[in-house]
């Protein structure tokens, strides 16, 4: 398990989290936000202020 503490592994995890994971979560959050408004407009329209 010595490799788990390696500097290389830590750098890879850092890059993966900052370049892949968080951007995908942020993009997904925006998409979910837009979808929530869409669904809201379906009920609160007609046909909604978009």
């Amino acid at each position: 398990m010595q490799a788990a503490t390696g500097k290389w592994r830590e750098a890879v995890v850092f890059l993966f989290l900052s370049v892949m994971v968080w951007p995908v979560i942020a993009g997904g959050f925006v998409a979910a936000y837009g979808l929530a408004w869409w669904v809201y407009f379906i009920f609160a329209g007609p046909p909604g202020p978009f």
Partner: protein
Amino acid sequence: MSDPLPPRGRRSWLIGNVWYRTATRPAVHFSLLFLTLGGFVAGVAFWGGFNTAMEAANTESFCISCHEMRDNVYRELQGTIHWTNRSGVRATCPDCHTPHPWTLKIARKMQASREVWAKLFGTIDTRQKFLERRTLMAQREWARMTANNSAECRNCHSAQSMDFTKQQPRAAAVHQARLLTGERTCIDCHKGIAHLLPKTEEIEGFDDGDGSPSMPELTGP
């Protein structure tokens, strides 16, 4: 050094995973200074990239990259007052068809994801199919513009800035009687100004029999 692993029998695949353990424990090789800077730079890059992508998807060249838009509505726009005029100001697709406030724009773009579906399945991939579907699509867009009180029109056109002495007498009279009072909104009368109208005879109560949108009567309150 990371914490010792729990005994082998009680180790889940996730807890035992070296990548997961690296990600969920304090960094041992990188300083807080470096990690916060890295997160900051990644955040700036994401924000910039997101906005760049959103603006790119909000340009006319993006809209007409599909032949459905380029060969139908875009071609029809050419020749209208919103394409060429004496002042040289012209409207592009997103000026009228996407809301400008951020939240509403995101919501509209999410809705537009279903247009990707229509593109994939060729719902309007010929002129004939487009014309057959135009009544539905036009009514949908009119309903949108009616509901938001012609918000996209008003991004450029302001009732307060209208000089009624420079309008045709009929237009000036109708604008003062119906627009200023809020009884009607732009799209109620100004349908078909940027694209051809659909088969309006299919739409009940659309016109007074002359093919143009019904105008509010000037008699009465």
